[in-house]
C-alpha cells in the first residue's frame, strides 16, 4: 500500500467518523440554559400580569412589625400599581418592576414603592435610616401558581444555629390572587390605625386622657391586670408593659393587623389562660375591647399611669449625680412641644439683658442620698450666656424623694438673691419639676438626638399633673 492509498484509507475513516453524527442522544433539557432562564422569567412575569384583579398580600416586614395589607396590579408595561392600608395610601406610588435573575429569579420594585416606604424612617422628606433593611427586592421560591406566589426577602439573612435551628427567617411575601373586591376592602382600612395612637380622641366632646393602658377584668369585674399601652406607628405594633407576680417587668410587643372595626393582634396577648386578639373599637368611650371566656380586656385612657416601671430606682443604683438639658445638643420626640415653649419663653424674657439660654442642670448632691428626705439634696440651675460670653446661673434648691415609683421634687428656696429676683420668670419650669403628682422617670439608653449621639445614658421626665410636658436629658 503506497502512501496515497494509506491517505485515502485514513481520510475514509475520518469521513465515516466525522459524519457519524449521533442525533439520537436525548439532551437533559429540551432547551439550552439561556432559553430556560428566559422562559422561566417570562413565565413568572406572565403569571404576575395574568391575574385579572391583581394580587393581595399581608406583608409583615419582621417579627416586631404588624401587618400591612397590599393590593398590587402588575401591568404589561412593567409597572405596578399599589393600594395599601399604609399611611392613608399616600405613598402608594406607581413603580416599575423587574422579574430578573440574580442567582435565582427575583422580583424587584425598581422605584420607590409602598414596600420601601414602610421600612423608611424620615426626617421631613429625607430618609435618615432604614429600619428592616429597606425591603423592596424579593426572590421567587418554587411555589408559584396561578393562585399563590411565595417570595422571600432578598435583603434578609437567614440565621441558623449550629444545631440547625432557624433563629431568624427571611421575610416571606405571599401574593394571593385577588378578587374583584379586595382592593376596595384594603382602601376602606386606610387611616384606621389613627385610632390606635396614644393621643387619639374621636371628637372634641371626648376628653384626651393622658395615659393609656390595658385592663383585664374577670367575670366579676375585678381587675386582674393593668398594663401600660403604647402604639408604634412606624412598626405598626402595640406594646404592653406590666409586672408579673414575681415583680419582674415584662414588655410585650405585638404586631397589629387593622380590621374594619378595630384591630387584631398578629399574636394574641395571653394572660392566665385567656387569649385576647380581636379588639373592637368603641368610639363612644374611646376604648378597644376584646373578650376571652369570661374575661374582658379593655384598652382605655386614664388620668394616672396604668403601670410605672422601676427605672427611677436606677438613679440611685447607677450613681447619677448631674443631668443636663441643653437644646443645642439637638432634639428628639421625648421633648414635648409644650416644654420647648417654656424654654423659648426664657429667651424672650432675657433678650433685653442680652442673655441667651444655654441649659438646665440638675445636681443630685452625692452627699444627699436621693430618696431620703434630706433638705436641699438637689439643685436645679438655669444657665445663660451673656453678651461677653460669660455664664450666668440662676440656682434653686429642691428636695427630691421617690414616691410610688415617681420622683418628686419639692421647692425649698432660691440659691442667690439674683435667682430669687428672677424666680417668677422660671416659675413655670420650677412648677414642671415640682409637679404635685411627681415626675415619671424612664431610662432611655444612650443619649441620641437629631444631631448628636453620645455613650452617656439618657432619661426622660414626664409630668404627671400635665403629661403634655416632658423632657429628655443626658446624665453626665
Amino acid at each position, binding site marked *: 500500500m503506497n502512501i*496515497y*492509498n494509506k*491517505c*485515502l484509507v485514513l*481520510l*475514509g475513516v*475520518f*469521513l465515516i467518523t*466525522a*459524519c457519524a*453524527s449521533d*442525533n439520537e442522544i436525548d439532551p437533559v433539557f429540551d432547551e439550552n440554559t*439561556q432559553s430556560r*432562564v*428566559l422562559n422561566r422569567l417570562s413565565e413568572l412575569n406572565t403569571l404576575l400580569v395574568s391575574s385579572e384583579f391583581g394580587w393581595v398580600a399581608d406583608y409583615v416586614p419582621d417579627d416586631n412589625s404588624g401587618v400591612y395589607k397590599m393590593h398590587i396590579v402588575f401591568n404589561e*408595561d*412593567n*409597572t405596578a400599581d399599589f393600594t395599601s392600608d399604609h399611611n392613608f395610601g399616600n405613598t402608594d*406610588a*406607581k*413603580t*416599575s418592576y*423587574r422579574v430578573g*435573575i*440574580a442567582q435565582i429569579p427575583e422580583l*424587584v*420594585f*425598581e*422605584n*420607590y*414603592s409602598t414596600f*420601601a416606604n414602610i421600612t*423608611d424612617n424620615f426626617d*421631613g*422628606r*429625607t*430618609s435618615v*435610616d*432604614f429600619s428592616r*433593611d*429597606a425591603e*423592596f*427586592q424579593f426572590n421567587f421560591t418554587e411555589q408559584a401558581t396561578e393562585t399563590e406566589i411565595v417570595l422571600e426577602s432578598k435583603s434578609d439573612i437567614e440565621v441558623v444555629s449550629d444545631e440547625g435551628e432557624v433563629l431568624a427567617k427571611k421575610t416571606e411575601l405571599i401574593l394571593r390572587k385577588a378578587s374583584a373586591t379586595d382592593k376596595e376592602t384594603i382602601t376602606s382600612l386606610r387611616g384606621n390605625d389613627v385610632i390606635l395612637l396614644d393621643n387619639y380622641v374621636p371628637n372634641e366632646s371626648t376628653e384626651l386622657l393622658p395615659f393609656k393602658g390595658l385592663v383585664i377584668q374577670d367575670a366579676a369585674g375585678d381587675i386582674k391586670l393593668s398594663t401600660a399601652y403604647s402604639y408604634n406607628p412606624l412598626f405598626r405594633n402595640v406594646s404592653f408593659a406590666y409586672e408579673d407576680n414575681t415583680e419582674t417587668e415584662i414588655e410585650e410587643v405585638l404586631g397589629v393587623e387593622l380590621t374594619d372595626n378595630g384591630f387584631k393582634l398578629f399574636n394574641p396577648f395571653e394572660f392566665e389562660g385567656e387569649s385576647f386578639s380581636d379588639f373592637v373599637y368603641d368610639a363612644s368611650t374611646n376604648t378597644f375591647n376584646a373578650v376571652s371566656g369570661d374575661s374582658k380586656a379593655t384598652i382605655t385612657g386614664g388620668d394616672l399611669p396604668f403601670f410605672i416601671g422601676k427605672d427611677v430606682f436606677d438613679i440611685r443604683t447607677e450613681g447619677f449625680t448631674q443631668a443636663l438639658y441643653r437644646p443645642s445638643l439637638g432634639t428628639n420626640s421625648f421633648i414635648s412641644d409644650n416644654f420647648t415653649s417654656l424654654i423659648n419663653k426664657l429667651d424672650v424674657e432675657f433678650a433685653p439683658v442680652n442673655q441667651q439660654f444655654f441649659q438646665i442642670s440638675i445636681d443630685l448632691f452625692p452627699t444627699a442620698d436621693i430618696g431620703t428626705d434630706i433638705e436641699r439634696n438637689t439643685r436645679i440651675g438655669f444657665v445663660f450666656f451673656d453678651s461677653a460670653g460669660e455664664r450666668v446661673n440662676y440656682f434653686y434648691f429642691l428636695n427630691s424623694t421617690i414616691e410610688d415609683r415617681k420622683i418628686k421634687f419639692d421647692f425649698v428656696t432660691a440659691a442667690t438673691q439674683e435667682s430669687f429676683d428672677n424666680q417668677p420668670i422660671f416659675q413655670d419650669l420650677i412648677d414642671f419639676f415640682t409637679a404635685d403628682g411627681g415626675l415619671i422617670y424612664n431610662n432611655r439608653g444612650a443619649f441620641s438626638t437629631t444631631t448628636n449621639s453620645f455613650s452617656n445614658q439618657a432619661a426622660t421626665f414626664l409630668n404627671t399633673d400635665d403629661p403634655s410636658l416632658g423632657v429628655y436629658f443626658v446624665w453626665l
Partner: protein
Amino acid sequence: MRKRFYIKLMLLLVLLGCSNSEEIIEPKPIFETEAQSQTEVDLFLKKEFTDPFGSVLIYKFRDNLIQPNQTATPVLLENVKPIAELIKKAWIAPYNKASNIGTEFLKRNFPAEIVIIGSPILNGDGTRLLGVADSGVRVTLVEANAFSLEEGADNSAWITQTFQTLHHEFAHIIDQNFNFDFEQYIQISSNDYSSPGTWTTVSNNDAIRRGMVTPYGTSAVGEDFAEMVSFLITTPEDVFRDRFITLEDCSMVAPGEIGACNLRNEGRQRIQQKVEIITEYLKNDVGVDVNILRDEFLSGI
C-alpha cells in the same frame, strides 16, 4: 494526479460532511437585552440623554448601584422626569452655552451613566454619601425623593445641594479628561489640608482660613478643586465674592478676634489665586467660560 484528485475530493467530503446544517452557531449574549421600554419616561430619557449623549439615566434600582455595605431606596417614579428636566436646564444647557465647541463638549464628556437614587446612600458606619463620581463614567445623584412635586413647594435647598454635588462630581470627570495641573495648585494650600477623616471637625471659617470654600474641600487637593469648581458655578458672583474674596475689615472685630480675622483674609487671598488658576484652566484647557456657566446655571434653576 488522479490519486491526488481523490484525496482532495475526500478532504472536501470530510469538510462538507462535518458541517452540521441542523444548528447554526452564532455568538449570543448570555441573556438577551431587555426590549426597549416604551413608557413615557423611558422614551423621554432616550430622546434627551441616550440619543444625543449616549448616556443612560438609570432610575430603576439595581443592587450594583451601591456597595454591599450600603443601603438606599429607589427614586419615586414621578420624580424622574422633573429631575431629568432639571439636569437639562442646570447642567446640559449651561455647558452647551459656556463651551467654545457648544454641544460637542458634552457629547464628548457627558458621563455614560447618571444614576438617581431616592434616599441618601447610607454607609454601614452611619455616614451618608451625597454623591459619587465613578471613574469618569458615572455620576450618582442621591436624595431625589426629597424633591417635592407639590404645588408651591420650595425645592431651592434641594436643588442647590444636589447641583453643588453634581457639578462637584462632574469637576472630577473634567479633571480626569483634561488633566488639571495639581502640582501648581497644591502649593497654594500645601500644609492646610486636613488629616484623613477629620474634615468634619473643620468649621466654615477655618476652611476659609486654609484657602478653601468648604470644610470638605480641606480633605484632599482633588476635593478642594472640585468644591471650588462647584461653588464657582452654583454661587451668585456677588455672594461668592462677599464670602470668599472680599477682605474683612479686621479693625472692626473684637480685639480677641483680630488674629483669626487676619488669617481668614490670608485664606481669601489664596482662594482668589485658586479662582484665577481654575478660571484660566477651564477657559484655556477645557474651553469653558465659567462665568457664562454660572450665569446660565443660575438662570436655569
